[in-house]
């Protein structure tokens, strides 16, 4: 890896470790290899959002051309969010694409992702199904996002009704992820979800 990239990640790593956000347990970074090209990030779900109480893991890949090009970041934890793919975890955020600037750091990227979780941009979606729900059925969106946070990220809020519907689908041969995606995408309409899976 280019010297400047690994040198910079080393410094940023220290910066994150010393930052206030770490003291508040709001962001965290871990090294996955010795040459500073693979990292694991963790952000806390922002308060007063459906993601509150959850811990979201991120995969961070640092390119050789870093910091002149942005790091490649995606969610490892499944999230129900208009700008994050509910299937792959891919993120639609301008600073991770064309709006990247070389002075941005791991810390600012993680904080930006937290900000994105707190204020979705449904007009520039990564997951069109989620974005449609966010705009058309905001209450269902919130409860769905809470349910996802409960299942995958350790949040405390969930709906018993949703859990029962998932169990029903699992009873007829679906796995949990499949059932959750189908039900969430159909606004928790069981018949539509069954049709979507088996139709």
């Amino acid at each position: 890896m280019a010297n400047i990239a690994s040198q910079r990640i080393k410094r940023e790593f220290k910066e994150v470790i010393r930052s206030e956000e770490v003291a508040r347990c709001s962001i965290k970074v871990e090294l996955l290899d010795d040459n500073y090209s693979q990292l694991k990030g963790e952000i806390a779900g922002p308060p007063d959002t459906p993601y509150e109480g959850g811990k979201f893991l991120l995969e961070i890949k640092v390119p050789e051309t870093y910091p002149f090009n942005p790091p490649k970041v995606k969610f490892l934890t499944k999230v129900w969010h208009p700008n994050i793919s509910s299937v792959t975890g891919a993120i639609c955020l301008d600073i991770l694409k064309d709006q990247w600037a070389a002075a941005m750091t791991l810390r600012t990227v993680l904080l930006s992702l937290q900000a994105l979780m707190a204020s979705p941009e449904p007009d520039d979606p990564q997951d069109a199904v989620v974005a449609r729900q966010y705009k058309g059925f905001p209450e269902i969106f919130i409860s769905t996002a809470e349910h996802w946070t409960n299942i995958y990220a350790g949040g405390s809020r969930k709906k018993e009704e949703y859990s029962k519907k998932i169990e029903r689908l699992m009873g007829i041969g679906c796995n949990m992820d499949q059932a959750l995606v189908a039900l969430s995408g159909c606004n928790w309409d069981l018949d539509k979800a069954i049709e979507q899976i088996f139709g």
Partner: protein
Amino acid sequence: MNRKPTTASSSNSLPTDNSKNNGDEKDKGDQMFECNICLDTAKDAVISMCGHLFCWPCLHQWLETRPNKKLCPVCKSGISKEKVIPLYGRGSTNQEDPRNKVPPRPSGQRAEAETGSGFGGFGFGDGSFQVSIGIGAFPFNLLVSAFNFTSHNPSDNQVENDRGPVISKIFLFLAFALVFWMIFGL
């Protein structure tokens, strides 16, 4: 650099002893002169019009990365090679930089200080007038005064009065000759 890992100085951080606090302050002092791209102490430092500090090799590489959209990496204001100012510290001229495979950083632009004295009428006509008077009259006056000096004897007064017009005509001729030489000789 051997920086001690220190905790952030927020209200809920662990209590730190005095030596660690001093380390923090020192770190903060260093950070003021860190390049905003490599986060190291800026080498071949340049500063943008928006006031952000970079190593020239780092900034050059950033500008090369997106040649169509040259923005400050910190505040995203417009930036260009012509509009960055190099910072020259004392005794730090042209030290070899390991990343020196880029064009030299742009040099500083020197402007002469404004003097504020009356250079007002430095027009073409004025200038040529002054020059012709100066060169034409100077030897003439000098020779006249030299002549006066040699004939301080009162008895020569008459001779001097007779010779005066002749000599002045000769010098007038010389003066015209000089002027002609200046005009046609150039």
